[in-house]
């Protein structure tokens, strides 16, 4: 059961290593990345509500982060 997870984790690390060997983006080149819409979680309330709904209605949970609190809904 752990096998696919490990394979994907290794793949992810390999991808990240490849990314590190790319030309780094300098601070003055981050005009697009600095915009709110390019943040990993641009609208935290939307993300929170989505996670809350899917946690209540599905058997899987987690992935995007940790913390956030318990709920008797599942």
């Amino acid at each position, binding site marked *: *059961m*752990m096998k*696919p*997870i490990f394979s*994907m*984790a290794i793949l*992810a*690390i390999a*991808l*990240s290593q490849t*990314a*590190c060997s*790319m030309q*780094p*983006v*300098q*601070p*003055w*080149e*981050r*005009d*697009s*990345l*600095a*915009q*709110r*819409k*390019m*943040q*990993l979680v641009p*609208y*935290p*309330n*939307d993300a*929170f*509500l989505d996670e*809350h*709904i*899917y946690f209540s*209605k*599905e*058997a*899987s*949970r*987690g*992935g*995007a*982060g*940790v*913390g*956030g*609190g*318990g*709920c*008797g809904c*599942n």
Partner: protein
Amino acid sequence: MQLKNKHKPVRRGLALATASLLGVPVVNTANALQPSSEWEVDTSILFYAETDRVSLAEPIIRARKDIGDDQFLTMKLVLDTLTGSSANGAVATGSAQTFTTPSGQGTYTAGANETPLDDSFHDTRVALSGEWERPLGASTRAIFGVNASTEYDYQSIGVSATFNWDFNQKNSTLTAGLAYNADTVNPVGGAPVGFTPMPTFPSVKATQGTGLSKDVGDLIIGWTQILGRKDLMQVNFVYGNESGYLTDPYKILSVVDGTTGDTNSYVYEQRPDSRSRQAFFWRWSHMFEEDVFRISYRYYTDDWGIASNTVDMHYRFEINPRHYLEPHVRYYAQSAADFYHTSLIDGQSYDNASADYRLADMTDTTIGLKYGVSLSNKSEFSIRAEHMLQQADPSQVIGNQSAQDLVPDVTANMLTFNYTLQW
């Protein structure tokens, strides 16, 4: 504190001047929210309604304050008000069925060929959480969190800590975090003993008491990578462990004849008292000229036998500098838990069993559309409408059960209003 605040405009001015000297391109953000501000208050309200089942209203207020020295405090208050009916786990039959309510104070009935729904389902939940984000050094940051929630039959209290380490000229960030939640379950009428029969009113069910504990721990390791001027990627691995009372005290199963499939009785469900799970999560954001595409994928597996794949996509289409439209598509597919049984066969023994359709072979499809408008460079309003369809398969269809829709589809509609204000 006041002196500090007085210096803020000067500091910001200096930062801007430095940015100009470094040649940072000027971004037209006149009509867009800033990534960071001294105060940000985000208010939302979600209206959620399932066809013939649960309805929910959930307001949120989230406030984030820059307290100086690159430190931020975030507080969030969430209120859930839930009413309606919830599937109790029993299957539909050719004749009407009567059930005892969880409190043991009354009964409810499902008509012939109707999925049994417990209409005594209602709840109000209040949740409060706080986060303190602070630098630990030139390239490390920490986020410490606390959270607590209470509802009439469930209490939860938790802590979390996440550490981020930037390197490779801040193009890469390594994340490590952990969270722990101590929950207490106080089921209405007490927690039933697994596999004991649902009594016929006014008889009382056998219970194993109340105030049962449930502990949840999570560990995350993540990597965030800038791939280019318009590309950002993150991969996370999360390991979680749950132990204690993981059963749903309000769910039952139909015990049926192994040949005819006719229901003979009902018993309370029982789930394992531990669960360990792993999730691999990947997300990528790409900006085109102005539009932004976000995609994420998650592979999840646990020792209950559940494995799932989730793909989630958003495309933010900039109509003009003030207005945007954001379609959303999500697809989720899970395999059933080892102990998922649509019904139990009379005379057979089971270690654990649940007929909760959320543990069945299931797909879940969501489509949505969000419209956002910048009211100024410090405020934004948005409205989001979503539709969700859940389709699950029964584990087994026996005899006369073939005439019934054993696990009917569940549809839900959601509407969210959001207003964000910065100053």
